[in-house]
């Protein structure tokens, strides 16, 4: 290999890696990231706590292994900056191996094919900026499918290779992880795996590690599909919308609509490939040739595999842009095979590579531009939240790129107003967070009222519930404004009681005080708000847990010197607030 070509190759790989590192450094904390941060605030970052998190997810929330990866990269910025770019980079050679059955060589020709592949991936997948750089999607989909492709890499290479016993345990774990990644890619992966193993068996090249990988995949996918958490995820969507029901509702038109949606999303990539084919046909004229039969077959299988994953979506409750990622990548692998053939004609290669270079450059510019902007906005927002006095209402600017687009997920505080209460209240001890624009959503407010014997009552913003919880004694607070006769903290906007009772957080008089003390409790059976029984008024007529705009009437479960109120995480991860109601008034009774 010429040394110049090797240098070009290494430079390009380093450049792409650098792009991914810069983007990882700029990664904003958005939506799901906040929930992970909240978890790591209360738990030490380590294997034990990660296992507890994974276990809870598997049984009670989202069983995908990508959620665990998300917790890892949210828990450690260093790991995110190191591992995520490597995974993003690894996708490219993995696609190359799947397409060509060999590793890329450090030549300009292979570099051109890799450039084509990367540019086409960004062109074909619907929301590349979000899929690559919004951590929850990156870990669930990009990491997930890279693992799946990595599983198939040794199979794709192996049919002409020597036995490798040491691969068996690695491939087994890889197979299991690939099975645990995504519901919609698993069935196709299992069929493809069976085909690989059968082909190896027919050629008398079946190896132990091949069976190990198959066993891992065939274990991992059922573990994901039948995970207890599936029954509650998406608000129990999987149990409500059964495959038969979904098929009946969608009908033939609806199903083909999903397939059409996929190819519509790929249209720019298809357009560029069609242009290259047309140019090849025009240039070669009658000398134009089809790719060799073997390449045609491989490309056809890849298109079929991409389509099969889309067909799996016919029975999936969620068919949105992000689930087209795996199919898009496989389609690009098929395109790459075609491109290699077309590149045999220099003029086609020159123009197509130039076009891909422009597309690649355009994406890089947009990624960096939006990444730097949203990263800076996010850093500013976090700095403002950290600087705001506890109990106050923090006002933060909206993001420069506030709307969801091909490049960014948008401003999570705009799309999900309840998230402001969660982030403000639970992570920064603020009354809430307001945006300087687009703010039309009333948020909960707590008001502290001091009542005096002679002077008129005094009303001020109140400390948050968690701050009150940390105070060993509330008397200094009650006497802060002078010799009060009574002191109370009430909340509005948090909970609409059907009986319109006032909602109290704290009452104090010189004779005593009432503050209902409840806090998060994680058990193997689920997540609860544990309320100290001694702090509860008697009798309690109603108990509620409210969160994310939903109010659940719950039955308190006695648990020693406390009662447990179950947290329903089917729709979201919080914030949750427990409400306990007497006949005449209600109390904030804890948080999760």
């Amino acid at each position, binding site marked *: 290999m010429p040394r110049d070509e090797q240098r070009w190759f290494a430079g390009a790989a380093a450049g792409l890696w650098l792009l991914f590192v810069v983007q990882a450094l700029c990664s904003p904390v958005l*939506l*799901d990231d906040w*929930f992970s941060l909240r978890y790591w605030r209360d738990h030490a970052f380590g294997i034990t706590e990660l296992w507890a998190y994974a276990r809870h997810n598997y049984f009670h929330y*989202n069983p995908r292994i990508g959620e665990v990866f998300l917790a890892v990269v949210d828990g450690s910025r260093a790991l995110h900056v190191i591992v995520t770019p490597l995974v993003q980079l690894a996708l490219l050679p993995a696609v190359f191996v799947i397409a060509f059955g060999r590793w890329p060589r450090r030549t300009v020709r292979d570099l051109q094919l890799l450039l084509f592949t990367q540019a086409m991936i960004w*062109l074909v997948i*619907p929301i590349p900026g979000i899929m690559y750089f919004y951590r*929850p*999607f990156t870990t*669930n989909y990009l990491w997930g499918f890279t693992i799946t492709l990595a599983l198939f890499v040794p199979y794709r290479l192996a049919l002409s290779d020597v036995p490798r016993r040491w691969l068996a345990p690695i491939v087994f774990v890889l197979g299991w992880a690939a099975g645990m990644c995504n519901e919609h890619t698993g069935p196709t992966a299992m069929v493809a795996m069976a085909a690989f193993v059968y082909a190896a068996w027919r050629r008398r090249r079946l190896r132990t590690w091949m069976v190990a990988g198959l066993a891992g995949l065939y274990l991992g996918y059922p573990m994901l599909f039948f995970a207890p958490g599936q029954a509650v*995820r*998406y*608000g129990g969507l999987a149990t409500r919308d059964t495959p038969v029901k979904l098929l009946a509702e969608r009908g033939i038109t609806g199903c083909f609509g999903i397939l059409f*949606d996929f190819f*519509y999303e790929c*249209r*720019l990539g298809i*357009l*560029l490939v*069609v*242009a*290259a084919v*047309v*140019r090849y046909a*025009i*240039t070669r004229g009658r000398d134009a040739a089809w790719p060799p039969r073997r390449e045609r077959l491989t490309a056809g299988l890849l298109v079929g595999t991409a389509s099969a994953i889309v067909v799996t979506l016919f029975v999936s409750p*969620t068919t*949105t*842009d*992000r689930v087209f990622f795996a199919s898009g990548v496989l389609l690009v692998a098929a395109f790459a095979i075609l491109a290699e053939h077309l590149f045999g004609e*220099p*003029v086609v290669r020159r*123009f*197509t590579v*130039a*076009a891909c270079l*422009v*597309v690649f450059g*355009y994406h890089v510019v*947009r990624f960096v531009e939006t990444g730097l902007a949203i990263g800076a906005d996010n850093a500013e927002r976090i700095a403002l939240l950290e600087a705001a006095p506890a109990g106050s209402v923090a006002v933060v600017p909206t993001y420069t790129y506030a*709307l*969801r*687009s*091909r*490049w960014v*997920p*948008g401003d999570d505080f*705009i*799309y*999900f*107003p*309840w998230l402001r209460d969660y982030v403000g209240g639970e992570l920064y001890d603020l009354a809430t967070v307001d945006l300087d624009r*687009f703010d*039309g*959503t009333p948020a909960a407010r707590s008001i502290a009222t001091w009542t005096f014997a002679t002077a008129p009552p005094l009303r001020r913003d109140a400390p948050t519930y968690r701050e009150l919880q940390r105070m060993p004694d509330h008397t200094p607070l009650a006497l802060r404004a002078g010799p009060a006769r009574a002191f109370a903290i009430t909340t509005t906007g948090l909970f609409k009681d059907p009986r319109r009772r006032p909602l109290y957080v704290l009452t104090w008089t010189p004779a005593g005080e009432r503050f209902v003390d409840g806090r998060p409790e994680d058990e193997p059976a689920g997540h609860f708000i544990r309320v100290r029984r001694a702090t509860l008024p008697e009798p309690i007529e109603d108990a509620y847990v409210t969160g*994310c*705009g*939903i109010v659940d009437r719950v039955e308190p479960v006695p648990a020693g010197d406390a009662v447990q109120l179950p947290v329903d995480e089917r*729709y*979201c*991860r919080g914030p949750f607030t427990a409400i306990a109601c007497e006949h005449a008034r209600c109390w904030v009774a804890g948080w999760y």
Partner: protein
Amino acid sequence: MVRLLLVLAILFAACGDDSSRRVADAQVFDAPVDAAGSGSNAMTILEPHPHDSKLDILVAGLSVGVIVGPAFGARRRKRRDAI
């Protein structure tokens, strides 16, 4: 003529209006109650998905360039082969 038709077809395909293809409106900010989910669930329900029209035009233009770009080398080779 064939090239012109191809170019027109490509431009039509690449620059088509897709405003009716997405169910959600990017300008609607207040999430409905049932959209108040976390992560993928939350994103699923809103999912405004505007396309980048500049990219559409860019790729259309590049596709045209791939088809009609000058090919001196190929012509030279053809002439050479014909001799």
